[in-house]
């Protein structure tokens, strides 16, 4: 398959850069420097990956805690994707940390004043919860009865703790940069960054599930559950509305409307983020015609994903202005390592979808209502 070759090629380039990084140091592939110590790796690989990893906790909240069981067909893709995004962020972190082999020290320290300490603990504990959730699927599929039953006992507590952990660390990612009000541009710096990050993580999670569902059912020729995606779209309308109201209120309250109306690259980046990434999809999701259309939903979800990605990059990279002689623009090495991780994640997910019971929708050519043939369709597309 051509697309798989492309992904493998991107992964290979990323791996080459990673080897260079570990052989010759971070400076050999990255543009981050003493004035701009974080950059693309943190904005894209950490903040965005974790935001997209919200697939797992949003669907677990809907299905397992709120008991809205009709969304169950979306739960498995959601938790598997969630786990992969969290693994992807760990890989980027291993490249990004200066001394990754000492990373374990965080778990033998007590630094409750550090947002990074809090994020590291919660994200790691949450990954364990995701392993339990995904483990239920895997152990059942391979017939490991004892382990499956054991995981069943701790499944609900893991979901409850995992969803709670997700709320606090998604918010704490917003806390990370509140400590530098003089470096983050006023257009973005706000004490409301934590709740804004949490709400946009909901939007990113639901958007990623929509994108995955449309693509997977299309590629595997399965019958997409447009009724469920339309339901998520209604949730999105509420989430995006709350987000935009909070965002506008925050800007007005902080009195930075003038800066935002000033024509500059920063303002343009903000307008693209808020209008194209949040407002346009809000309008799209609220139109019944879009909610009935597979590719309409897909487009709106892609805009939300792009909006959240741009928001994280804006906060962590674009808005950073350090009064210093050094400047920063991401290097090819920084971008290719993260794209390599993305490509690797897609390849692993493709394998998982073909080999595990993640999608159980009936195939397109089967009569409506029959669930037989989903497995065959999965095999056929492999």
């Amino acid at each position: 398959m051509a697309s798989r070759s492309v992904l493998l090629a991107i992964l290979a380039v990323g791996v080459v850069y990673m080897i260079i990084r570990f052989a010759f140091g971070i400076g050999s592939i990255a543009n981050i420097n003493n004035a701009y110590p974080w950059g693309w790796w943190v904005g894209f690989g950490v903040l965005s990956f974790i935001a997209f990893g919200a697939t797992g906790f949003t669907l677990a909240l809907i299905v397992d805690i709120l008991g809205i069981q009709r969304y169950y067909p979306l739960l498995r893709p959601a938790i598997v994707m969630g786990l992969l995004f969290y693994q992807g962020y760990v890989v980027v972190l291993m490249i990004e940390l200066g001394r990754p082999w000492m990373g374990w020290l965080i778990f033998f320290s007590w630094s409750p004043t550090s947002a990074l300490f809090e994020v590291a603990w919660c994200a790691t504990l949450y990954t364990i919860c995701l392993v339990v959730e995904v483990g239920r699927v895997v152990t059942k599929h391979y017939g490991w009865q004892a382990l499956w039953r054991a995981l069943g006992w701790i499944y609900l507590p893991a979901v409850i703790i995992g969803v709670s952990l997700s709320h606090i660390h998604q918010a704490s990612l917003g806390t990370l940069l509140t400590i530098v009000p003089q470096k983050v541009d006023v257009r973005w710096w706000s004490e409301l960054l934590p709740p804004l990050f949490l709400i946009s993580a909901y939007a990113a999670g639901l958007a990623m599930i929509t994108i995955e569902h449309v693509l997977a059912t299309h590629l595997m020729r399965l019958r997409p559950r447009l009724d469920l995606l339309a339901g998520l779209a209604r949730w999105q309308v509420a989430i995006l509305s709350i987000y935009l109201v909070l965002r506008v209120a925050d800007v007005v309250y902080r009195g930075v409307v003038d800066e935002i109306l000033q024509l500059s690259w920063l303002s343009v980046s903000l307008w693209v983020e808020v209008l194209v990434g949040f407002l346009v999809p809000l309008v799209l999701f609220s139109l019944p015609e879009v909610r009935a259309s597979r590719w309409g939903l897909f487009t709106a979800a892609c805009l939300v994903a792009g909006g959240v990605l741009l928001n994280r990059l804006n906060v962590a990279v674009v808005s950073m202005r350090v009064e210093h002689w050094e400047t920063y623009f991401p290097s090819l090495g920084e971008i290719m390592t993260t794209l390599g991780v993305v490509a690797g994640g897609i390849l692993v997910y493709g394998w998982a979808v073909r080999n595990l019971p993640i999608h159980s929708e009936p195939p397109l050519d089967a009569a409506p209502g029959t669930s037989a043939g989903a497995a065959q369709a999965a095999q056929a597309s492999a």
Partner: protein
Amino acid sequence: MGQKAMIQDNTRCIGCRACMVACKEWNDLPADDTQFFAGAGYQNPRDLDENNYTIITFTENVEHREWVFGRDLCMHCAEPACASACPTGALKKNQETGSVDLTDWRCIGCRYCMQACPFVIPKFNYDSVIPKIHKCTFCADRIEADLTPACAQVCPTHAISFGERNEMLAEAERRIAAAPGHYVPHIYGKEEVGGTNVFHLSAVPFERLGYPTGLPKEPLPDLTDKSLRFVPRIFVSLVALFSFLAWIIRRRMRWHGTLEER
């Protein structure tokens, strides 16, 4: 004995850079192969890095056709943003001496301290395979041996003074009061981000020396503390809320026979 502090009186500095040499000697830092560069400032090396924990900055005062000097070094904040940001406790404020201490082996190279520092002081050796954070130590080892920091020890014009923090602050205020036209009426480090243990004095406004100005007066760790302090409470509340919701909803679904066991 209280915390120590330093006065960097830039009006007394002659730009001899003996402090830089003494700092390198005491901290065993290698010499640099430096190059002239174009741009603002004419100091050499251009900036702090893993081999330079302090530098004298050279800026041209165009109006008076003279050099004005400044100095980059760790400000040893009273409530350091770097230490509050450090996830492993590698950076800690020493309440005895006043220095912000770095425990080398605890550094994992996350660079959150660099991001958090309002004075852009901690540096990282990006070109090393085993990098870590580097910054001025306040010569904590010398202070413990009742010596003054190396830079203060060698300064030939007494531009660097060192002593008890209260006395240093009083001395800085005395100098400004004694020669009001000579100094700008501002002790840099007295109120910046909640106060520091290094006080800078200058004859020209500090932004002209390239010092970060317009910093908030409250300690920066307060900004993250505003949300982080609620994390444990919010976590416990969320677990309680979600447990209750899951329990009551499942109970109802079991009652109605709609709960699907998987």
